[in-house]
């Protein structure tokens, strides 16, 4: 069973534990500027949104790469950058419609979310379950349950 990161922005408090967990997992350092997941804080509305790669099935980044540095992890489904192969041409960063693959000056390579080989550190670190790692076929399950509860249980008690 493959799993997907499921993000519920309503639950995000903006603590950036996810960003630090990501940078620590990949670089052994606490550094949001090296994180592959970023939290955006829209202070005029109070909305905070964690955002990262959605692991497109037909990934623009993978198709655009001229040296085949991006491959699919067959277990997790993640699109993974091979640093040994990447030449830092940045074409993938242009191809990605979502901006979730980015160049890293320090390494001269690009980086993107690789689902931490199946145990995403961001989801583990999130204190409010704004980021969870769930069955890829059933990311809507919780929302379905909520509506089922509303339409079934709550309606019948009215």
């Amino acid at each position, binding site marked *: 069973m493959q799993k997907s990161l499921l993000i519920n922005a*309503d639950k995000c*408090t*903006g*603590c*950036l*534990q996810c960003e*630090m*967990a990501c*940078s*620590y997992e990949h*670089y*052994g*350092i*606490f*550094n*949001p*500027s*090296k994180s592959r997941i970023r939290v955006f804080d829209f*202070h*005029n*509305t*109070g*909305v*905070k949104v964690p955002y990262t790669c959605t692991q497109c099935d037909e990934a623009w980044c993978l198709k655009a790469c001229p040296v085949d540095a991006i491959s699919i992890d067959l277990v997790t489904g993640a699109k993974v950058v091979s640093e040994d192969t990447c030449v830092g041409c940045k074409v993938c960063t242009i191809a990605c419609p979502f901006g979730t693959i980015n160049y890293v000056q320090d390494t001269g390579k690009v980086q993107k979310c690789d689902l931490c080989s199946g145990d995403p550190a961001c989801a583990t*670190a999130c*204190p*409010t379950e704004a980021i969870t790692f769930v069955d890829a076929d059933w990311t809507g399950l919780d929302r379905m349950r909520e509506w089922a509860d509303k339409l079934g249980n709550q309606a019948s008690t009215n």
Partner: protein
Amino acid sequence: MSWAGKLLRVNLTKGTCKSEPLNMEWAKTYLGSRGLATKYFVDEVDPKVDPLSAENKIIWATGPLTGTMASTGGRFTVVTKGPLTGAIACSNSGGYLGAELKMAGWDMVIFEGKSPKPVYLYIEDDRAELVDATDLWGKTVWETEPAIKIKHQDPQIRVSCIGRAGENQVYFAAIVNDLHRAAGRSGVGAVMGSKNLKALAVRGTKGVGNIKNPKAFMAAVNAGKAVLAGHAVTGQGLPTYGTQVLMNVINEVGALPTRNHQDVQFDGAKDISAEAMAVERADGKSHLVTTQACFACTIACGRISQIDESHFTIENKPQYKNTSGGLEYEAAWALGAANGVNDLEALQYANMICNEDGFDPITFGATVGAVMEMYEMGVLTKEQLGIEAPFGSVKALCHFAEITAQGIGFGKEIALGSARLTAKYGQPDLSMSVKGQEFPAYDGRVIQGIGLAYATSNRGACHLRGYTIASEVLGIPVKTEPADTDGKPELVKAFQDATAAFDSAGLCIFTSFAWTLADVAPQLQAACGDEFTVDNLNLIGERIWNMERDFNNRAGFTSKDDKLPKRLMTEAAKTGPGKGTVSGLGKMLPQYYKIRGWDSDGQINADTRKRLGL
């Protein structure tokens, strides 16, 4: 390690920025943030210095855990000599600025001298420069932060700055970071203003990577996070209700100072409580919009609210129609109960002005309370104030908030704070303050321990120097009776010393509802070194407390300044469980001095100095 290992010294007179290695011997004995910055400060600054002169210095300091994944590890402290008090000023803030500074590779920034023209400091990792701020002078906090981001074409910059209150040297001006977090108390913002220093803007991309034992650190961090999540206060009360969870609780125990401490219960408390913030209004929305954590915080007590669009306070004022930070308990109390005002929307309006103009809502609200009492006595008139100002007047509160930072009309007088203002009008006993700084939101005559904590706090009245409310009201770590004076000196000392250690580590003091130093020690030991045992952290805390006290003593403070206003000593609480009580400070203070190892004048004994290595 986990200290960055270097500090930035900025001479504003000469316009220079220099990197210095951090004194690691001091880092081991004073930890960081509050403790280490104060060590540098007392070593370099004459205690008699005029706080608003070029000879005063002002320091931004992070702790060893700032910028790490330790829960709440994003705190920083601003240390200077406070203009409100003339004592050591030490104001702590969260948000994201502290972590950004650490990630740029700096443990602290020391500003000295005075710039000939308005400037701000811009830090981009190792690079630091003073930038002309002439075009920013006169701008509010909310205008300054975006202006700096646009100027450098970098939305990821974090900004700590003053608004118009700091520029005009309002005695209780704050330094605001990330739009609505603040190093709020003692007038630290006025010191910035006196130096023509508008802001500190930072972009840090280096991160914090020099953890001594990363694996042990992550294990300790995760254990700490689990303790916070499992505790009733840090796992449920604060996340759900914010600090405002206290409004109804403190009112019920009869310790909610009301109408300038004339009363200890406020009939309007329920209207301005956390519960009221969550209620659906006539417009179909609730006041509370969402919660907000500071950097690395897994508690998330911060509140983000939105004023009812139809409320009279924000008519034709678009900048107040967006969501913004607040209300927190202290602000809701100071702007509300202290003045008898129960209009939640108006309190948030006044609170937003405090953030926008950059001043402390506690001292401001308490000063308005004193003004309202003097108005009701006939000492101050409508002609002097520009408005009728009885207790409970929403319009007067909002009017005063609007005119204070710019010193318009009577705003210039409010800008003095309650001690100077009441003295000026011949009513010094009406200032509800210690050492010139106003009380926070707990009545010090009903809850004996907090009264002693106020009287002996090194920065004037303050709840964040020894929050004995945890024990006396909430039963953490053990329940003590509010009315008891026995055992309170020991309780106060224990809280004061431990708090100094929490602050200096770079952690938020709210963790201490659930954590003791036994939860902090493993995190510090893994990050910094084995020597940071619980015993050593207590000793470090005690050392810091005495260092601050010593500075104040040398500045001229004596035991005579460890006192509470006449009202708390002679006017008994009229209602509530503590009805009939006054402060028993006289019974507690001698014992407190004794266990501190001080003489009867509050001066530190020679053997205490020796024991603490002062």
